[in-house]
């Protein structure tokens, strides 16, 4: 573990009686790509503003490379922000915008020109220095906003939903470029978004937030495969979430049957929820199936069919299948034990992690046997 660059300790923000952030703890290591992911109003932008210094927190500590920076004004912090609406100064040219921070530092003109040219080249707009901001397209403004921030050589770059104003195709392209840029520069990125796809694609680590709290943090794969609760499972990707009952370790019951699963450490007979991702379900013939369902509907999504179906207990199922099915027919569904993920009600992240620790080795054995 490298030296943490940003640490938030028990950070809380209240407006009057309204709590925006509730006891936030997070650690950002140097040179990684982090994402704060959550629905609008969950407090993710507030965390960004607290780190940038645009806002005072009500309680808790913000540390930068081990130093408390709660009382350091925004202009003295070694972090820079890419704003949601870019906030490019309309009365300056592209080059003047990018040079703004360096000019304030009173660097030599030649040094400024050189660094500005380098930053513009990095965002592939080398020839745009003399343009007016109003002459740029949304995507170009986006790049200039990034150039204006990275030219300052910050230790941490904060990005506040920077891609939300772009169209889908450009957004995907910018995701690739941002990720590449982060890896080339080796700067810590803290990216804020409500788009789970964006978060999964770019991040080293994701913090999933809701209502002012961090619900779960981890790598995109961890969060996708092992969501801590209903909210996270539902928010990250599409999923089938069913009420279930824990029978014993590695045995769970739902839809009138008992199945082998990969979860343990939960008291027997505890009511739980089970998550199965639609792409983990495979269509098969009823005699080979773990469950039988009736096909209701299907949509062709290009690279897969999105099929909706109902089982005999009236549970609705979402299935992603490469092959089409026939509406109204009864088909079988099959899945592997590790495709099931069991979630306990009201389990906190620390308890969840601790529980996983207790049976991780055991789980590996069971998986090997199947």
């Amino acid at each position: 573990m490298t030296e943490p660059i940003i640490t938030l300790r028990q950070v809380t923000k209240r407006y009057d009686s309204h709590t925006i952030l509730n006891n936030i703890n997070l650690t950002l290591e140097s040179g990684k790509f982090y994402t704060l992911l959550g629905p609008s109003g969950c407090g993710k932008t507030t965390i960004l503003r607290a780190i940038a210094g645009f806002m005072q927190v009500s309680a808790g500590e913000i540390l930068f490379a081990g130093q408390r920076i709660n009382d350091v004004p925004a202009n003295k912090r070694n972090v820079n922000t890419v704003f949601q609406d870019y906030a490019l100064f309309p009365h300056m040219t592209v080059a003047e915008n990018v040079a703004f921070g360096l000019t304030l530092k009173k660097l030599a003109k030649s040094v400024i020109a050189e660094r500005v040219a380098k930053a513009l080249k990095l965002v592939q707009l080398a020839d745009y220095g003399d343009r007016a901001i109003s002459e740029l397209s949304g995507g170009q403004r986006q790049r200039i906003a990034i150039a204006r921030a990275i030219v300052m050589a910050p230790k941490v770059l904060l990005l506040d939903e920077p891609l939300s104003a772009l169209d889908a195709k450009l957004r995907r392209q910018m995701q690739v470029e941002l990720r590449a840029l982060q890896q080339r520069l080796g700067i810590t990125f803290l990216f804020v978004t409500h788009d789970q796809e964006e978060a999964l694609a770019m991040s080293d680590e994701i913090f999933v937030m809701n209502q002012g709290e961090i619900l779960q943090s981890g790598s995109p794969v961890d969060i996708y495969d092992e969501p801590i609760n209903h909210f996270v499972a539902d928010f990250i990707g599409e999923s089938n979430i069913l009420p279930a009952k824990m029978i014993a370790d590695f045995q769970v019951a739902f839809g009138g049957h008992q199945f082998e699963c990969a979860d343990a450490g939960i008291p027997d007979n505890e009511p739980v929820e089970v998550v199965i991702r639609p792409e983990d379900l495979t269509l098969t013939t009823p005699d080979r199936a773990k469950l039988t369902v009736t096909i209701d509907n299907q949509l062709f999504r290009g690279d897969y069919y999105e099929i909706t179906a109902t089982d005999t207990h009236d549970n609705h199922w979402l299935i992603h299948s490469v092959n089409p099915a026939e509406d109204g027919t009864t088909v079988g569904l099959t899945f592997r034990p590790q495709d099931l993920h069991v979630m306990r009600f009201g389990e906190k992240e620390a308890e969840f992690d601790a529980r996983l620790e207790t049976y991780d080795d055991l789980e590996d054995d069971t998986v090997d046997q199947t």
Partner: protein
Amino acid sequence: MRVSKPTMTWRTIPLTKHRTWAYFLPYGLWLALFVIAPVALIIYQSFFDLGHQVTLNNYRTYFHSATYLKMTANSAWYAFLITLFTGLISYPTAYFIHQLKHRQFWLLLVILPTWINILLKAYAFIGIFSQAGLANQFLTFIGVGPQQILFTNASFIFVATYIQIPFMILPIYNALDDLNPAFINASRDLGASSWQTFRHVIFPLTLPGIKAGVQAVFIPSLSLFMLTRLIGGNKVITLGTAIEEHFLTTMNWGMGSTIGVVLIVAMIVVMLLTGDQKVKGGTPR
């Protein structure tokens, strides 16, 4: 940054073209009767002498008379001073009010004096500035002794500035209100101190508000005549006073109109100087 206006609205115009013209009618009539016609009449009148003969003599007189030229320079100078002091007071005031919690209330207090007739305000100041007025009572109290305040150039500028302040504060306040706070955050984020942020970002981006304020203050100040007489004691003769004299006292409507034309030209010059030059980054929002 706001995205440019959608082109959709333009496409719908041809359909409603006729109706749009109907909406323009009241304003068009007003414009024709009370703006274009008077200006045309003034220009027309300026080419007649006292004997109703067509002549260019009025203009010749104006440009060859040291009195008129000095009067014009005087008017411009005092209008400049009034605008300058108004601006120096209004910008910080507008900036301060904009930071306040109950800004609408404070703004109302700024607007309130404009609801009172200018004559009433002038007479109130005569009371305050007179020999036995409040101002002199205060000067006596602190031991300075009574001074001649009324009928001085300073009192004229003071009262004129007082009257013009709301017209400067409002456009500046609106410009500050329109300023996207993200620009201020961005500036701070890039390392600018409060003062640098003000100088490089807030001030340039609110310049259109100042320009609008200058237009609203400088031009009327060129032709102030009530205040020059009541407060300034006619020591400063502005173009406004000259026009009034020509129309009401000497009955030389031609000469009065000529000075009117000069004023109109001056207004156009000010409008051009303070108008929207091509802003580098488009709309300053």
